[in-house]
């Protein structure tokens, strides 16, 4: 079983760490940014995109060795890719499968699209409230403008 699964993977299997799977191809690099993978210098990071997927056609995948992200960090992914699956790997086995949940408040993750918003004019953190979970509609805590899912820009 384990061997068969491994064979299907187009990128190398992980001994220990985190696999973020089923990332929509257009969101992959946003997720990379969101998790700050660029700044990881000590652990091996594997990023794959446009891989065949039964469920999605094409997908992206991220594997980070020897690292388990805090739940809070993982939940940020829900802003751009709510259906990703997070696998925690220990000794080549999936020991935990997690789904990400959108937090009620997004602190310093999303950029406000309103050029007249204070957050775009002061050195400060942004803050959004999730006002509609189903459609991922946000509202800026400061200028109070709603942001639809397709208009969400990461900071």
């Amino acid at each position: 079983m384990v061997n068969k699964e491994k064979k299907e993977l187009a990128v190398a299997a992980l001994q220990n760490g985190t696999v973020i799977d089923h990332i929509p191809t257009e969101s992959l690099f946003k997720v990379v940014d969101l998790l700050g993978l660029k700044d990881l210098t000590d652990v091996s990071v594997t990023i794959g995109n446009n891989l065949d997927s039964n469920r999605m056609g094409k997908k992206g995948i991220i594997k980070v060795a020897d690292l388990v992200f805090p739940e809070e960090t993982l939940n940020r992914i829900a802003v751009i890719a709510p259906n990703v699956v997070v696998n925690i790997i220990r000794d080549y086995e999936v020991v935990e499968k997690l789904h990400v949940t959108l937090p009620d408040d997004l602190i310093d993750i999303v950029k406000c699209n309103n050029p007249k918003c204070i957050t775009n004019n002061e050195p400060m953190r942004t803050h959004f409230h999730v006002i509609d979970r189903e459609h991922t509609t946000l509202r800026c805590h400061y200028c109070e403008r709603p942001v639809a899912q397709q208009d969400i820009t990461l900071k």
Partner: protein
Amino acid sequence: MDKHSLISISDLSKDEILALLKRAQEFEKNPNQRILAGKVVASLFFEPSTRTRLSFETAVNRLGGRVIGFSDPKSSSQAKGESLKDTIMMVSNYADLIVMRHYLEGAARYANEIASVPIINAGDGSNQHPTQTMLDLYTIYQTQGTLENLTITMVGDLKYGRTVHSLLEAMHHFHPRFKFVACDELRMPEQYKQYCKEWGIDYEETRDFSPEIINQTDILYMTRVQRERFSDLMEYERVKNVYTLTASMLTGCKPNMRVLHPLPRVTEIAQDVDDTPQAYYFEQALNGLYARQALICRALDL
């Protein structure tokens, strides 16, 4: 400690609104009360607004307080590139309350997170202007004797007009019926119609500024149609005249009906309306003083 700032009209509960109306009524009877003796209020106008600033500063003066601040951002340290945070930190050291107007949206909410003293938002860009809403509510209450079950007709720029949006939200506590009269370009945004649906508020939308609409109305809330909102200036010229109120349109109106306008008006209310018993926009502006006195006292727990 709860600071009793006022950033957005939705920060106020129904009970708080009603208590503020009672308080404003006291100030209308006697506007000169030395409640603020020994207090310093900072009036920070990062964007000039003579009308609002004079109303606030008169409110403080009539309550016996002192005012510091600036009325023109060019003369403030902002012109030297100081951040809003630093300005607010500095002024917090000196004043008991900060009244601020800013051209950026969300500036007051951010200032409130930084300041150790309460903040009253005197307008943040096109976002919120809650003291205007409070004076509108007071005027409605004063002229109708209640805020409950009124028919409010909003005319003109319903798309960009922040006063109509805030008034709509504030009125949701009081079972209103709304009539939205505007051209297609300046219709009430979907977001606010959705809001009405969520709160079970009855509304009607029309392009036609007709006598039938006016005759059913308790409060006729006129707004200014601004030329810069139009990409097609021909369209502006047409619309400007369609949504102009004249005295002859008021002949069949209810006796209690009053015409409000946040001012300044340009052409949307003809001068001949000024002499009708329905004209109430100048009194409305004066009510800004009482409403602001009440809000200043609330902010300082006095």
